[in-house]
């Protein structure tokens, strides 16, 4: 597959979908309030780009801070549960248990505790992003290739040296895999927070536009959210690509 096709074909797919959407709306006389034409959404994006950018910035910061908080707390927790059997038994089952609680159900409570400002969105984004980071990091730390541990033993590395020079760097690809999942979840968490109670952000804009039956703007907000999610995901992938020379093309050499 030539590299040109790798960029061109997704665009062709997107154009075809847009075309199908347009034909459907025109052919079946779908009212604007139900499904606007793609061109109407495009117009709404152009007309409201300042608004979308301003609200987008709010959601971006909520997601990003939530993700960073999840990273800053998740990695040390993973290190603790992966290195201490006691802490592992104390907290790992609890962690799994909390994961089965739907975060949406917690959102109203968090709103009561933290108000409708940035803090509550941050807390919800953190809550959903935390789990994949902890679990993937802990998995990576536990699955150090046995031959690396042997190597450490053969040169008499102590526990601390084995951790920092072998186990942690060996776990980094797992940490990044967790981050890829976490960053998209953080955006979802921020939008949940905005849905439940907020007066700013793209999620809030979507709700407001919807209640005013301004479907083109609601769709514009939706597209902005998608762009935000893809952009953040791409940022993590970029970090992963930047680090890939450190880990080789095919994992452990």
């Amino acid at each position, binding site marked *: 597959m030539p590299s040109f096709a790798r960029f061109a074909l997704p665009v062709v797919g997107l154009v075809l979908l847009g075309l199908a959407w347009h034909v459907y709306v025109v052919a079946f006389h779908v009212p604007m309030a139900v499904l606007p034409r793609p061109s109407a959404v495009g117009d709404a994006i152009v007309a409201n780009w300042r608004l979308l950018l301003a609200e987008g910035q709010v959601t971006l910061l909520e997601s990003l801070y939530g993700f960073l908080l999840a990273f800053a707390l998740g990695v040390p927790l993973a290190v603790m549960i992966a290195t201490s059997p006691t802490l592992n038994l104390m907290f790992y089952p609890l962690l799994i248990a909390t994961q089965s609680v739907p975060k949406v159900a917690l959102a109203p409570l968090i709103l009561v505790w933290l108000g409708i400002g940035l803090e509550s969105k941050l807390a919800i984004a953190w809550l959903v992003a935390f789990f994949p980071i902890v679990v993937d990091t802990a998995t990576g730390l536990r699955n150090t290739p046995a031959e690396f541990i*042997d190597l450490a033993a053969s040169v008499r590395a102590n526990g601390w040296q084995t951790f920092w020079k072998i186990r942690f760097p060996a776990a980094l690809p797992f940490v990044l895999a967790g981050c890829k999942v976490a960053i998209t979840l953080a955006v979802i968490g921020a939008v949940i927070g905005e849905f439940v109670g907020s007066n700013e952000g793209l999620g809030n804009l979507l709700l407001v536009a919807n209640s005013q039956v301004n479907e083109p703007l609601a769709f514009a907000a939706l597209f902005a959210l998608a762009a935000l999610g893809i952009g953040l995901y791409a940022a993590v992938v970029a970090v992963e690509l930047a680090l890939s020379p450190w880990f*080789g093309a095919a994992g452990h050499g």
Partner: protein
Amino acid sequence: MTSAAAAAGREGASRAAAPFGRLRDVRKTFAGASGRGGEIVALEEVSYDLCGGELVSLLGPSGCGKTTLLRIVAGMTRASGGRVEMRGREVVGPQEDFGFVFQSPTLLPWRSVLGNVLFPMEILGRSDAAAHRRALELIDLVGLEGFSRHRPHQLSGGMKQRAALCRALIHEPSLLLMDEPFGALDELTRMEMQDLLLDIRRVSGATVLFVTHSIAEAIYLADEVLVFSPRPGRVVDRIRVDLAYPRTPAIRYTEEFTALERRAGAGLGVVHA
């Protein structure tokens, strides 16, 4: 160990002197399945005196306990009984002056070749300018000049194992332990690596224990070959290899060499003498 003494050891003249290492009734058993108290014997009692400066091959089929014995000598596996002494001290854990080469290169993918070679020195707290110089010298010696900044995934299998050899040698170990290090390489690379090992040995004078399941490799490299039977592992033959140094690939086609191969094959039960 000076090279003169090493040479003497090779000729067998110093065998009466205190050996470099002493293995006494070393054995290894594992608990049997389902905990009925049955024991699986991985390695029956092995006693052996290891002469300084010699290269001793441990030859046997897979699962004969030769790797287990190597790991016990390295202090990486506990023996179920018996005693291992190296340079007069009992081995109860990995030693600072041992170097280990694993079956797979086991290079850390996030480090350059140089970083991998220096890894043991970092652990020992001796990663100074001198270590750096020595690492580069070793990298040149094994034929990896110009690759010190490369990452492991950019190297071929043979090149990776050369780098692993440098890492095992960086702290100038007195005992080099090698666990089927060339087993995964193609035949030509393997022969190159064998000659490289003979060179390195001549220069460093290190004592070497070399695990292999290749009869030709065991004989080509060694001063003495210990032949193991299949599980439970037992030393069935000790073959003194008095082939002259420097050894070259041509030696493989001599009658002397073939006779040694035949004897080792008989010990392994693959040739009926």
